[in-house]
C-alpha cells in the first residue's frame, strides 16, 4: 500500500526533525515564543479596541475571537507541516537541490513537504487552541459532539486551503526560479480573513470568496457555526473548496514539474 508506505516514511522524517529540536532547545523555545507573541499582539489589539466598543459590525468580542481562533489554528497546520513550500525557489531550484528530490523513488512533492517540520508553528497552534476554547465557551454557541467534529473538519479544511494556495504559487518557481515575492504578496491577503468579511467592500469580498478563497480559512467556517441560519451552507462548502483547491494546486504542480525537467535537459 502506497499510503501506508508514505505514512511510515513521514514518521522517519519526523524522527529526524525531533532530534534536531532536542539538540537546539533554546532555538525551539525562541521559535515557539515568537509566534505566541505575534498572536498575542493581534489579540491584544482586538481586546484593546473592544474596551471602547461593544460590537464590530454586529459581531461580539468572542465571535471575533472565534473567527481569529479558526484562522490561527488553520494557519498553524499550514505552518507546521507545509512550511517548506516557501523554500522551493531559493533552497531547491536555485541551488539545484531539487534534482536530488527528483532522483529519489518517492513523490517529489511529498519529499519537499516532509523535508521540514516548522517548530515555530507549535506555539501558534497552542495559542490558537486556547483562543478557540475561550471563544467557544463564551460566544453562546451550544456545543454537541457533532458540531465539535464539524469544527475540527472546518479547521483542517482551513489548513488545507492555506497550503493549497501556497502550493499553487510556489509552483510558479518552476518558471521564475523563485516565486517567493508572489507567494508573500498572495499570503498577505489572508490577513483580511481575520475579521468578518462583512466589514469590507464588495470587491474585496468577491476576491476572498471566489478568486483566492481565504474567506474559507476563517470567516465562513466561523460564521457557519455562529450564525447557522444565514451561513449554515458554508459548513458544507468549506471542505469542498479545500478539496477543489488541493486538486487544482496539485495539477498545476504537475504541469510545473514537467516544465522544470524539460529545461534541465
Amino acid at each position, binding site marked *: 500500500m502506497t499510503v501506508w508506505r508514505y505514512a511510515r516514511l513521514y514518521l522517519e522524517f519526523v524522527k529526524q526533525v525531533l532530534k534536531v529540536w532536542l539538540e537546539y532547545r533554546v532555538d525551539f523555545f525562541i*521559535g515557539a515564543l*515568537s509566534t505566541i507573541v505575534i498572536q498575542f499582539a493581534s489579540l491584544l489589539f482586538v481586546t484593546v479596541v473592544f474596551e471602547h466598543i461593544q460590537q464590530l459590525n454586529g459581531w461580539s468580542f468572542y465571535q471575533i475571537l472565534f473567527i481569529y481562533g479558526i484562522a490561527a489554528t488553520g494557519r498553524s497546520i499550514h505552518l507546521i507541516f507545509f512550511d517548506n513550500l516557501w523554500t522551493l525557489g531559493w533552497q531547491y531550484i536555485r541551488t539545484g537541490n531539487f534534482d536530488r528530490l527528483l532522483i529519489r523513488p518517492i513523490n517529489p512533492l511529498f519529499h519537499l513537504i516532509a523535508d521540514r517540520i516548522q517548530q515555530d508553528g507549535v506555539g501558534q497552534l497552542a495559542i490558537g487552541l486556547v483562543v478557540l476554547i475561550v471563544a467557544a465557551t463564551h460566544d453562546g454557541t451550544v456545543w454537541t459532539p457533532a458540531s465539535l467534529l464539524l469544527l475540527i473538519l472546518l479547521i483542517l479544511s482551513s489548513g488545507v486551503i492555506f497550503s493549497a494556495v501556497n502550493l499553487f504559487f510556489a509552483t510558479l518557481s518552476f518558471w521564475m526560479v523563485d516565486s517567493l*515575492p508572489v507567494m508573500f504578496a498572495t499570503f498577505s491577503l489572508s490577513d483580511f480573513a481575520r475579521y468578518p468579511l462583512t466589514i469590507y467592500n464588495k470587491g474585496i469580498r468577491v476576491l476572498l470568496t471566489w478568486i483566492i478563497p481565504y474567506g474559507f480559512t476563517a470567516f465562513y467556517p466561523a460564521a457557519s457555526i455562529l450564525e447557522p441560519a444565514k451561513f449554515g451552507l458554508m459548513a458544507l462548502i468549506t471542505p469542498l473548496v479545500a478539496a477543489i483547491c488541493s486538486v487544482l494546486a496539485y495539477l498545476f504542480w504537475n504541469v510545473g514539474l514537467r516544465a522544470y525537467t524539460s529545461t534541465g535537459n
Partner: protein
Amino acid sequence: MRKYIEIFKSQLQLDAAYNGWFWANAVASVIGLLIAFSFWHAVYRHTTQIANMNLPKMISYVVIAMILGNYVSGVGNRLSESIRSGEVAIELMKPYDLLLKLIWLDLGSKVSASVRNSLPLLVIGYAFLGVQAPVSLAGGALFAVSAILGVLIGTQFDLIIGVLAFWTVNVWGLRVLRTGILSIFTGALIPVTLFPAWLLRISEVLPFQSMVYTPVAIYTGAIPFQAVGMTLLIQTIWLIGLYVLVRLIWSVALRKVVIFGG
C-alpha cells in the same frame, strides 16, 4: 548565440526577483492599509469618539503610524546575517566601525524606501483614505524631527536583536519575536492612549513608544505643542541610553568571537 540569450534571460530573472520584492511589499502594504481602513470604519459605526479621537483623526494616526512603523527595524537583519555567515570576522578587520557602517547602509536603504514605498502609500492615504495634513506647519516640522529620532532609537534596539545571533541560530524566530513586541508597544497598530491603564503604565517605561507613537501623536496634535519639547528630550535620552547598551553588549559579544577564533 544561444548562450547569450541564456545570459540575457538570467538577468531578466534577477531583475524580476528584485522588482518582485518591491511589488510584493507594495501589495502587502496596500492590503494592510485597506484592512485598517475597513476595520476602523466598522469600529466607528456605532460611536463617534474613542479616547478623544474621531474617525478622521484615527485614520490619520493609523496610516502614518503604519508607514513609520516600517522604518523602526532593518539593521539587525544585516548584522545577524553577517554573524551567521561568519563574514563578521573579516568585517572586523576592516578599517571602519562595523556597527556604524551597518547603520549608514541601513539609513541609505531607508531613504530610498521612503521614495519608492512610503510616498505612494502617503499619496493613497491623502487621496483616498481621508488622511489629514499635520496639525500645523510647525507640527509637521517637529514630527519630522521626532520621527528621525524614533527611527534612530529603533535602529539601536534592532542592533541588540542582531547581536543575539551570536547566541542563537534561530534568527528568524528572533525577528518574529521582535516584530511582535514592536507591533504592540511602538504604537504602530494602535495609539498607546487606547491601552488600559496597566498596559499604558508598562508602555511608558519602555523605549518603544518613542519610536512610532510619539512622532505620530505630534503629527495628529494629540501631544500638545507645549509638551513637545519634553517628549523630544525623552526620545534623546532613550537614544543615548540604547546606544551605550548596544556598545556594551557588542564588546561582550566580540570577546566571544575571539574565543571562537581560538
